[in-house]
């Protein structure tokens, strides 16, 4: 996609003229690329003054109670975003108590995050699992461009060996052929453009001689579920000697 057509896509989404597929496409692009997200937000901001031209109309009687009832119903089915004491539903909350709730919620969330980080670090340090197979992906010129480690549970660690310049409307997609004669299967996108670990369910444990490949695909991934773009590199897996 050219920059010009990206601009138009952004404008049409902000204006409300884009169809669902285009909205979803831009959404994925914006999630992968903060610069695109910023452009979309800018386009929306430019039009926001038009919302202020609508009359401010009094909300219907009972609007808040109906809304609150819906929130309570939602909460009953899904866990709340942050721990809340039971008195939350009492109408006359003092502002001090409100501040306390927020402070407590923030503190609890902070402690939980710190704890989780610690656990994750320990897990990573202690139990980096052994790969079942390793493949070195080579480009057409025979240069190594990525190291692929396939774990028995079909977690795939991809270490890029060269920084790639990926166009704004493209993404690197990782493929493998679990069966030698079968179709290629997508393992996922390297949407940050950096080394990454991908997980996928439902594939057999990687085997020696399994083909791995990285291609450039349109942002959001190949529309056909099969590789369409130019190949960055490919390689056959081997079992590491331990």
């Amino acid at each position, binding site marked *: 996609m050219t920059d010009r057509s990206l601009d138009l896509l952004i404008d049409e989404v902000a204006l*409300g003229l884009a169809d669902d597929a285009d909205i979803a496409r831009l959404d994925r692009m914006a999630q992968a690329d903060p610069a695109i997200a910023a452009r979309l937000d800018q386009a*929306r901001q430019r039009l926001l*003054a038009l919302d202020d031209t609508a009359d401010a109309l009094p*909300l219907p*009687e*009972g609007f808040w*109670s109906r809304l609150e009832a819906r929130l309570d119903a939602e909460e009953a089915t899904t866990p709340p975003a942050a721990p809340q004491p039971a008195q939350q539903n009492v109408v006359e909350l003092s*502002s001090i108590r409100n501040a306390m709730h*927020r402070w407590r919620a923030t503190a609890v969330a902070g402690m939980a995050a710190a704890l989780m980080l610690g656990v994750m670090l320990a897990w990573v340090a202690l139990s980096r699992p052994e790969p079942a197979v390793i493949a070195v992906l080579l480009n057409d010129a025979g240069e190594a461009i990525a190291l692929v480690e396939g774990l028995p549970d079909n977690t795939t660690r991809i270490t890029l060996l060269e920084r790639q310049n990926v166009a704004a409307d493209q993404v690197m997609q990782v493929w493998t052929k679990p069966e030698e004669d079968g179709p290629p299967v997508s393992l996922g996108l390297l949407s940050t453009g950096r080394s990454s670990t991908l997980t996928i369910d439902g594939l057999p444990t990687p085997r020696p001689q399994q083909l791995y490949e990285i291609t450039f695909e349109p942002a959001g991934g190949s529309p056909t579920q099969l590789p369409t773009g130019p190949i960055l590199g490919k390689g056959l897996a081997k079992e590491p000697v331990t």
Partner: protein
Amino acid sequence: MRDTAHRDPFCNPAQGCGLTPKPKATSSDGTAVASGCRETRADDVVTDHATWIKACAAGDKSALQALMTAEGGRMFGVAQRMLRRIDLAEDAVQDAFVLIWKRSHQFDPSRGSARGWVYTILRNRCLTMLRNEDRVQPIGPEAMESAINDQDLDTAFDRLDQTDDLRRCLERLDLQTRRAILSSYVLGHSHGEIAGRMAAPLGSVKSWVRRGLTKLRECLS
């Protein structure tokens, strides 16, 4: 020209603009009614909206209520302008607030204004209702609809501040293109609806809009 009622009536500096300003002037069930406060600097509004959304993410319902008091009336107006029916407009605004509540933890102030975030959620909800649901039917005969629509578009344009860049740049577009762009944003019309109302081929409408958007973007940046 917009009158003072179009400004955001919120946050009296004398009463403080804390983390969760107490919703003022609410009726017994908390439904917003007019507030006496008129003088609000744009910066304050931005800050308050972001603060309320963050407080929502921490589970503070009074922050959502504060947001409703400040912004609900305008949101209701935007929804009615698009959906043309009071009952559907209320549904849309209710849905929007539920989504704001549920997605509040996703809001990232570094990625855009809080008000913009709120209105994007509302507008998307209205557009989905317009596009995907059969229940949105015009309220009257087509000719009457069309006259109301044109009037809404002109009002929207007239109410843009004289100093607003958007107004200056829209003014440079020819009338047809301006109406096409305004009717998609203000009324939520699709390419097809615009073409139908203008009795113009769909392809021409699409290219007018594209050219118009390009001009608008160049003029605004």
